[in-house]
């Protein structure tokens, strides 16, 4: 039996942290089941990536070439299919990057198997693999297994320690058929480092709520002041920015908007569930959807004018009852 760890390289030829974490989980799974470990790498050039994890003890396979630098569904699934078939994988474990979250569910169909995605844990119980994942958008966590094989699994970030162990890898080249691909990549659209406000690896998440665009004590809205305060905080701390749904939806309702917020900033039931060590919520209120958005935030503090806020009570560590405009202005002054 073979457990295949499958990963793609980043633009610089390295493996992402989540890929290294997934390798740890895949190796533990293979060891626990007494299975062979195979490593499949996809990218323009995977030599450096392969060497960086050579000590994992797996048998290395790779699909390489310029076409695999970009993360198209059609090329990624062809590469994954070729590697999985080359090593006769019964279980495929891959990182839940945007690229593989896109491509690998389809791999299950091509292999005649099944898929489970966004795992939060992977263990061996009585010699069988047991997976964990969240249901209903991080509301409840389930533990499950299945008999169908091949079983394709993707693992979310932060669920295992990153593998470390370099060496010299002997990589078997595998060919994939991408002759029928009808999509061509046109590159990435990235915000500049100065303008970037979504930072998945940041220490802190600043969440903005609709209160920033509501009338203040003087009866006026102060959106420009709100934007300045939020941006100054982000600049000083290099935090990531999140938003409540009500705030990003305000544009569609004709309300005043924070100009740099989009639906991509939305956290919660219908948005992202980011992972950060600390989270500071400002001008938010709400209940269940916020619990979902903050599921993976370790330390949580909130600034809110309502001491009885249903979100804050029992769900954040410290609630500062006050005016976020005034408090954040002072915070920014102290941060310099």
């Amino acid at each position, binding site marked *: 039996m073979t457990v295949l760890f499958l990963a793609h390289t980043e633009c610089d030829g390295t493996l992402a942290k989540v890929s290294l974490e997934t390798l740890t989980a895949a190796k533990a799974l293979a060891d626990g089941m007494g299975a062979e470990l195979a490593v499949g790498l996809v990218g323009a050039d995977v030599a450096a990536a392969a060497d960086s994890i050579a000590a994992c003890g797996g048998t290395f396979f790779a699909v390489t070439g310029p076409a695999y630098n970009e993360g198209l*569904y059609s090329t990624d699934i062809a590469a994954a299919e070729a590697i999985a078939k080359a090593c006769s994988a019964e279980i495929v474990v891959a990182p839940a990057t945007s690229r593989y979250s896109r491509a690998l569910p389809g791999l299950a169909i091509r292999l005649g198997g099944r898929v489970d995605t966004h795992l939060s844990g992977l263990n061996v119980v009585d010699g069988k693999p047991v997976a964990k994942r969240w249901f209903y958008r991080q*509301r409840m966590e*389930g533990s499950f297994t299945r008999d169908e094989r091949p079983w394709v699994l993707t693992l979310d970030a932060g669920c295992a320690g990153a593998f470390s162990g370099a060496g010299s890898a002997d990589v078997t080249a595998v060919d994939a058929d991408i002759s029928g691909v009808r999509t061509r990549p046109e590159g990435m659209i990235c915000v500049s480092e100065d303008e970037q406000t979504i930072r998945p690896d940041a220490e802190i998440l600043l969440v903005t709520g609709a209160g920033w665009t509501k009338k203040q004590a003087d009866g006026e809205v102060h959106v420009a002041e709100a934007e300045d305060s939020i941006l100054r905080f982000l600049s000083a701390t290099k935090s990531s920015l999140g938003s409540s749904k009500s705030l990003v939806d305000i544009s569609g309702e004709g309300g005043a908007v924070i100009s740099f917020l989009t639906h991509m900033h939305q956290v919660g039931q219908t948005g992202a569930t980011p992972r950060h060590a600390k989270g500071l919520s400002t001008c938010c209120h709400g209940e269940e959807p916020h619990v979902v958005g903050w599921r993976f935030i370790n330390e949580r503090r909130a600034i809110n004018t309502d001491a009885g806020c249903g979100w804050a009570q029992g769900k954040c560590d410290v609630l500062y009852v006050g005016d976020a405009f005034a408090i954040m202005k002072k915070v920014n002054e102290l941060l310099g």
Partner: protein
Amino acid sequence: MGNEFHIVVCGSIVPDPLQTLAPQDGPNGPILQNEMMLPAVLDPWAGHALYEAADLAAKNPGSQVWLVSLGPKAKLQQVMMAVSQKAPFQLVVADGSSSGFEDSYETAKVLSDTIDGIAGLDKSKLLLFGGWQSASRGSGAVMQMVGEMQGVSEQFQGVDKITVGDDGAIEVLERVEGGSYQKSVVDGAPAVMGWATGELPEPPNNPQIGMQNMQKNMPALQQAKPADLSGSSLSFASVEVPQQRRETRIVKDASVDEMAQEIVEWIKG
């Protein structure tokens, strides 16, 4: 030159996001407490996909939109009374569970089989739309599997924008990490688009569209075939809501300066 698309939107219903959810054991695995009593809404991402489909069809005369939905038909009927007022579409129903605990493969199989049964669907013009995630299972896996079962290998997930050229080529923006987009161009249909939020606001209710839709969609609900989702070996050992109640310290009598100072010290660790 216009482009005709046959747009199939896959989308089901989910519990209203504001509801408190709890699991319990059912006869075939976990279910939600009071599942049939919970108010339901169209899955948010499926909704975005439907509104984008209607907009695309309106811009490309001759195009048609079908909404293929797997769910309990009684609940679907309630939700569709509201959704039908938003955009013109033909409803196609598979009567079965919309539970988030159902196997994504079994769900995809039912959806694919249901698509195969749509009369008049030209698969050379097929754009398969749906949400890239759902508010139930949240696997982000069903659309890809339906696409593969339909033989469609040009797929996109986390889509926020598509632009159709005169030659039928479609430029697609897909979300990737860090608030960035991947831009690519597919030479035309067939293709799969798993939508993120898109760029369109929720359409206002239009009772006239609602009347037209329900004339077609009520028969579709009545004729819905039972869906068989029993083919999976998926077995749950447990499903739990984590108990994470925190002891919240309320700071309300301190000055702005004191609160700010404490926050800064916390930030700096």
